């Protein structure tokens, strides 16, 4: 009996600590949800004047005229989606290539240094990418790449209009490529980590059955890591959608709708960064906040789409990494 006393109290103490721990972790998790909801609501509230004034036309309207107080978000939405799509188109194959090389092909001694170099790329502030884009990459695009594209692809039936325009070096294509370079380290770093997690026996078994490197990649490594890779891609995509400074430098910041990738456009984040300080009318400021809300919605839709895709894949192929 006497021995029971201390044990009892320490047990109840332990239970209390456990409850406290449960509550504090729950609070941390709820805090994220509350912040998310709070941010979304405050942006919707701040943008209510724009939504009231223009209704659905705010999303479909191509006009952005501060003098006459007419605002439509079509151009920034279009620019955001197109530049992010180009970025992904470039970043995905390159990142997977980097990750595969680092885990499968590169000599063991070189894996560390190259891996660190990739991670360092992720640490470069985006404004550096922007300035490099403006001072080095855009002139190169304008002098070499864009004239070639216009000359060789400009007359093609479907692709032609995409590459038809003045070779000024600044525009959606340049912005998309710079964004692509920016998100490569993010996708590559995650991809490398998950590729390293693929059990060696699986790969060895495939090799023993006579698979080539390519077959091991497409039949073992990629299917095994599918979910994680899709997660990495959407991490990069999320970053591309919201990237501000680098895009501001090379996108051209013009509210013009154009099919050509060589023409300047605008993105949601760049428009807000450019125009918020001097947005002096109530409606103008509200429209910019409404733009921020739309970026939130666009990102949410894209991420939900990714989640749905994952669920579908899980149903068809079963669980993966």
């Amino acid at each position, binding site marked *: 009996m006497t021995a029971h006393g201390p044990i009892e109290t320490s047990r109840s103490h332990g239970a209390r600590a456990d409850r406290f721990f449960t509550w504090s972790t729950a609070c941390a998790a709820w805090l994220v949800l509350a912040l998310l909801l709070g941010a979304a609501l405050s942006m919707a509230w701040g943008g209510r004047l724009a939504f009231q004034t223009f209704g659905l036309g705010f999303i479909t309207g191509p*006009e*952005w*005229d*501060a*003098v*006459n107080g007419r605002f439509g978000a079509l151009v920034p939405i279009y620019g955001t989606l197109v530049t992010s799509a180009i970025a992904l188109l470039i970043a995905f194959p390159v990142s997977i290539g980097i990750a595969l090389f680092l885990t499968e092909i590169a000599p063991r001694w070189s894996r560390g240094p190259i891996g660190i170099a990739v991670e360092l790329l992720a640490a470069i502030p985006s404004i550096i990418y922007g300035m490099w884009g*403006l*001072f080095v990459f*855009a*002139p190169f695009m*304008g002098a070499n790449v864009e004239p070639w594209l216009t000359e060789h692809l400009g007359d093609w039936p479907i692709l032609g209009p995409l590459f038809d325009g*003045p070779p*000024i*070096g*600044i*525009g959606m294509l340049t912005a998309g490529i710079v964004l692509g370079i920016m998100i490569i380290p993010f996708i590559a770093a995650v991809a490398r980590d998950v590729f390293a997690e693929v059990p060696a026996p699986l790969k060895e078994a495939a090799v023993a059955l006579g698979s080539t490197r390519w077959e091991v990649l497409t039949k073992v490594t990629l299917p095994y890591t599918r979910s994680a890779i899709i997660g990495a891609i959407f991490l990069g995509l999320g970053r591309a959608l919201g990237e501000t400074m680098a895009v*501001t*430098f090379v996108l*051209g*910041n*013009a*509210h*013009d709708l154009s099919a050509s990738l060589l023409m*300047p456009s*605008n993105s949601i984040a*760049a428009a807000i960064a*450019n*125009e918020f*300080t*001097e*947005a*002096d009318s109530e409606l103008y400021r509200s429209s910019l906040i409404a733009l921020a809300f739309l970026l939130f919605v666009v990102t949410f839709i894209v991420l939900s789409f990714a989640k749905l895709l994952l669920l579908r894949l899980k149903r068809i192929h079963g669980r993966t990494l």
Partner: protein
Amino acid sequence: MKKSFWALPALALVAACGGNQPADKAAGSGAAITGAGSTFVYPVLSAWASDYAAQTGTKVNYQSIGSGGGVSQVKAGTVDFGATDQPLAADELAKSKLAQFPIVIGGIVAVVNLSGAEPGKLRLTGPVLADIYAGKVKTWNDPAIVQANPGMKLPGAAIAVVHRSDGSGTTFNFTHYLTQVSPAWKAGPGEGKTVAWPTGVGGKGNEGVAGYVKQIPNSIGYVEYAYALQGGMTYTALQNAAGNFVTPSAETFSNAAASADWAHAGDFDLVMTNAPGANAYPITATTFVLMPTSPANKANSKAALDFFRFALEHGKDRATKLDYVPLPATLVQQIESYVGQKIK
């Protein structure tokens, strides 16, 4: 156990109280004047501020957050003065209980990246400049440009138009000028710190526009004079209201300032573009200071006025060195009497 549990917050409280006292004192003694607004005026204002601090020990803390920000900050009373490139109208000043006066003059120049063109040699008229920015004049050998430049070899290349992407007092003055010289521009994009540009790419800040113009062949943009000079850019001569083609310089800017009718502009609400003088440069810009007429902190308000008096009377060399134009003496006198009447 209990004691040490409460000790930490108690200590923090004591420290916070103790720490607050000297901070309050510093603010109360008026040792620092605060201001916010125009980025256009920032280089000269900060140079004046360091001169003034060296002479008197009074510090001026100026945040170049943009004209619009300066206006809203001074209206909210968070700063002692605001600075804006777009003057406020008399009724708005009265409503917000603000006084307004000009502080320094600068110029906005059209810069081009055109092989073979030298600074000040290419001539443009106001309506042609407006048509270029409207996308109506598309190539450099357009008859309208050729006509103003007899004997000059102009390429048939397409003109790449560069404008500001951010809201800006520079854009306000530039579009204000285009509105005055081109009825089509007035009916179309109009004037403002940012407008719906019919064509072109947008650069962020003067440095963004300058960077684009330097890199895009056959482009045209508009920047502050100082940026064009420091960047070694090719600026153009512009036709003024008197019909003469003038190149930008300190002299032609002050001609514009002298020919502007300041005496009859209530609260100095005057934009000097398209000034009438024979040798006046057509796109000059003025930065205006905004101060509350009955300030909450009278000591700081007086200190700020002393600083501006110093700047207007002893800061002329500084301004000239930085490619601004000091205000003419008659205008400084008008400001003195205006400030004496308005700010109590």
